[in-house]
């Protein structure tokens, strides 16, 4: 009971407040920009070359404003939005009216989730293990080699690195596709031809994220471990004659992982924002380009849908870390 009152409840309240404030900000910010979704649609219609009688433009503007639910004050729209949200409805996309926002999100989310969850976890595991070992055995030749490699990789801007992979493996050695999620004509299904096709198409986007992700985790973990090995309790363990591997894994790397767990949770919470540059460079489907397009076109509902999920994801990840942290760090208790 004390756990609920002193630990769980305050964190859940905090979680709800963060979501409320986050979504409120996300509601108002796009409406304060000069982007007018109605005008964007009219501009699209006219810029596409179709003839729009000038006399009909005002009538069209009025119709669109009504259909989009953009009539009334900003606060009226705000309350209408919350009323809709409590029913789990983000409304229709304004720029792709009347397709529901959730349909658009659900069309892109599996691609983003598949790519980012996998690559985040793989790069986190490999990067932290290698970083931990390299930090503990820092004088070994292999540790120095790994360190040098990550020192070279880490500063490369992601865009350049991704482009490099694309040119290397899609053009100079054309063994991977340069675009898309799967081959033309491939039947979707739970079968090896489709799964292998999916893996081949996701290989370059995934590698670009994994390699740089490993380098980033490696360097952070190595730095953390380098500090931990100088701690008194490690010296004491060594003086006590404990096995080197036991000291490395149980005393040093385990403790070094604590801040990295927080980082992992937050990274997983951020996947709803998509991986815009990855999607652009490799023409890979996902939420990033969907959100980018929504911002450009002033599609308020779609922006709200994606960013609300992102806010909930990050706040949820933070709550989760708060709740499970005592399991990893005995210094923290549920009180």
């Amino acid at each position, binding site marked *: 009971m004390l756990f609920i009152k002193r630990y769980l409840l305050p964190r859940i309240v905090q979680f709800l407040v963060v979501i409320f404030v986050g979504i409120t900000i996300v509601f108002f910010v796009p409406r304060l920009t000069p982007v007018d979704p109605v005008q964007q649609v009219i501009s699209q219609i006219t810029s596409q070359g179709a003839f729009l*009688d*000038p006399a009909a*433009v005002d009538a069209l503007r009025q119709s669109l404003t009504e*259909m989009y639910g953009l009539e009334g004050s900003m606060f009226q729209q705000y309350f209408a939005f919350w009323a809709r949200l409590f029913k789990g409805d983000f409304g229709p996309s304004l720029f792709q009216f009347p397709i529901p926002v959730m349909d658009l999100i659900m069309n892109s989310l599996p691609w983003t989730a598949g790519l980012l969850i996998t690559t985040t976890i793989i790069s986190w595991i490999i990067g932290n293990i290698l970083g931990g070992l390299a930090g503990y055995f820092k004088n070994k030749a292999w540790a120095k080699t790994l360190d040098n490699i990550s020192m070279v990789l880490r500063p490369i801007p992601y865009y350049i690195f991704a482009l490099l992979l694309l040119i290397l493996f899609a053009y100079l050695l054309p063994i*991977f596709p340069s*675009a898309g999620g799967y081959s033309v004509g491939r039947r*979707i299904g739970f079968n090896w031809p489709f799964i292998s096709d999916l893996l081949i198409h996701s290989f370059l986007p995934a590698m670009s994220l994994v390699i740089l992700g490993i380098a980033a985790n490696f360097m952070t973990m190595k730095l953390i471990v380098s500090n931990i090995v100088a701690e008194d309790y490690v010296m004491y363990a060594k003086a006590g004659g404990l096995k080197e591997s036991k000291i490395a894994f149980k005393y040093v790397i385990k403790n070094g992982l604590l801040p990295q767990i927080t980082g992992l949770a937050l990274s997983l919470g951020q996947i709803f924002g998509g991986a815009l540059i990855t999607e652009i460079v490799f023409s890979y489907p996902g939420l990033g380009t969907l959100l980018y397009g929504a911002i450009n076109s002033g599609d308020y509902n779609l922006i709200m849908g994606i960013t609300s999920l992102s806010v909930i994801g990050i706040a949820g990840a933070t709550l989760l870390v708060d709740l499970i942290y005592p399991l990893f760090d005995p210094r923290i208790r549920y009180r």
Partner: protein
Amino acid sequence: MKKAFLVFFMLVLCGILSFSQLVGIPREETLIVDISGARASSPGNFNVYVAMWETPERGVQQLMLEPLWMMEPVRGEVINALAAEGPIYNEDFTQMTIKLRKGCYWSDGVPFTADDIVYGVETTMKHPEMAYHEQFSMYIDKIYKADDYTVVFDLKQPNTRFHTNFVDRWGAWRPLPKHIFEKVDDQITFQFNPPISSGPYVLKDYDQAGYWTLWEKREDWQRTPTGMLFGEPQPKYVLFYYYGEETNKIIAQANHNLDMCDLTMEGFRALLQKNPYSRGYRLEYPWIGATDPNTTGLILNNDVYPYNLKDVRWALTLAIDITDYIGIAYDGVAPMAALHLPPTPFYQKTYYESLQEWLKNFTLDIEVNGEPFKPYDPSATLRAAQYAKERGYEVPDDINELKEMFGPGWWKYAPDVAEQLLLRNGFKRDKNGKWLLPDGTPWKISILCAPGVTNPQYRNALAASQQWRNFGINCSIVQNESFVNVTTYGNYTVSTSWPSNEPWGGHLDLFRVFSPWHSNYYKPIGEPAVNGNGAASRWKDTRLDKIVEEMEKLDWNDPRNLELGMEGLKVLVEDMPTIPTFGYPSVVGWDEYYWTNYPGAENPYIIPYHSFPNFKYMLPYLEPTGRK
């Protein structure tokens, strides 16, 4: 040993994975074209009849749908597609009759008849969510069929151009299949999947992630306007693929995985070096053609001082050296446009040539050496050719060919005259030669453009800023994601939106260019203009009002229209509310590895763009090379 293993591993990898983009689709029977817009975020939706439908250029407008009429800018004609002939109006233009082409069928075997038009139009009028709802509701009193192949529209008020709602010019109201839509409860949320085609191809497959859409030739292609008018389309399959980033397009075409795409000039040059089978509209410099029915340039906000002064607008025009300007913007390849009309061969023939004498004799209200100043410079074409020669390119000597390549002249580079125009309006230079406004403050111009560095808006902004800086004006470029909105609402001084509304492209009627400028549609700053192009300049003129009003009463084929078009262009030249600079420089990259006989400069049989609805009429002309 390790090295040998590595080599073996790589070879095996290449052998296993040597990547094929198509599964079960013969490449040699497939034409692959780029989607220039965006990936479809709701790829299963083919209900293009809703107003905000997102990406018609994934094959929907190019292959799936036939319009009643098709605007064809290169041929300079309006093609009767599902319509058998042009529109028939009664004397006072309150009734329009359409005769339909007989023998056309939907892809599911149902005949295309007047019922489809009547039902489609009535459905559109019923639903505000559908495209053209406002225009139809505003004008149509009643629609009915006289017989199976004749549709009659009774209009609420005279409208000489009502049929233009049905003329496809990258968009139009296109007939929908009554037998499908009438069985649907909600025509707006209906996904129309699988879609039924009136065009020569049917949907074969599409990417669940929205990157590609595959179309297959109809077995009964003869029963479509494309088949009847142009013959059998050659590719069995057409694949529309969104490659996004230009690097991907270049890689794809270099690997022969992309036959037709849009590129930037820089990307095109890179592609030429990588793929000996790639070509542009022209085989040699300048590679592009003056074929796009669109003009680029600069919009001046006529409601903001000092751009409300004609002298200032003309001073800014005369401070531009057009050869240098296009050199900065597009390495000299874009065709110059002196008029508010694209310099396509069709408009060069109809308007530019007809106005040459007037342009040569046109004078500004200022004297140079005691003579009225004539600002037009027909020799600008030759200067552009000279610029190309100096860059090491070979260009023909024939002036007509040069005009087609580089445009038929522009305005003189006359900074001295520009200076006089400013001085007489109270402007002066400071000790560093920089221009000051009459109140003594420095004259600064912020040129608004779209983000990115390859689009024509940015290229115009870049070139203008350099030209005007050389002239002594403090210029800066402002890139804004909301560029169109900001321009439309008038919150700018100089913008790089299109300087005038696009003309039809293949018809001499300029009502579409002039009408948004009618003072009835004038909107003050803060209110959205009827479009973000010329009308956003907030310029109005009673002379143009009268021209538009007279045009409104004339059949668009009336010969008087040509005269009115010329009169309107003269008014625009005299007042120069916006500054047209060059025609839209569309750069296409075509791979001749699998397909040839694209509509290049040596054989311009149709508009050469795969995003245009006219694309379906290009396909019968393509020839397979036979390569596997």
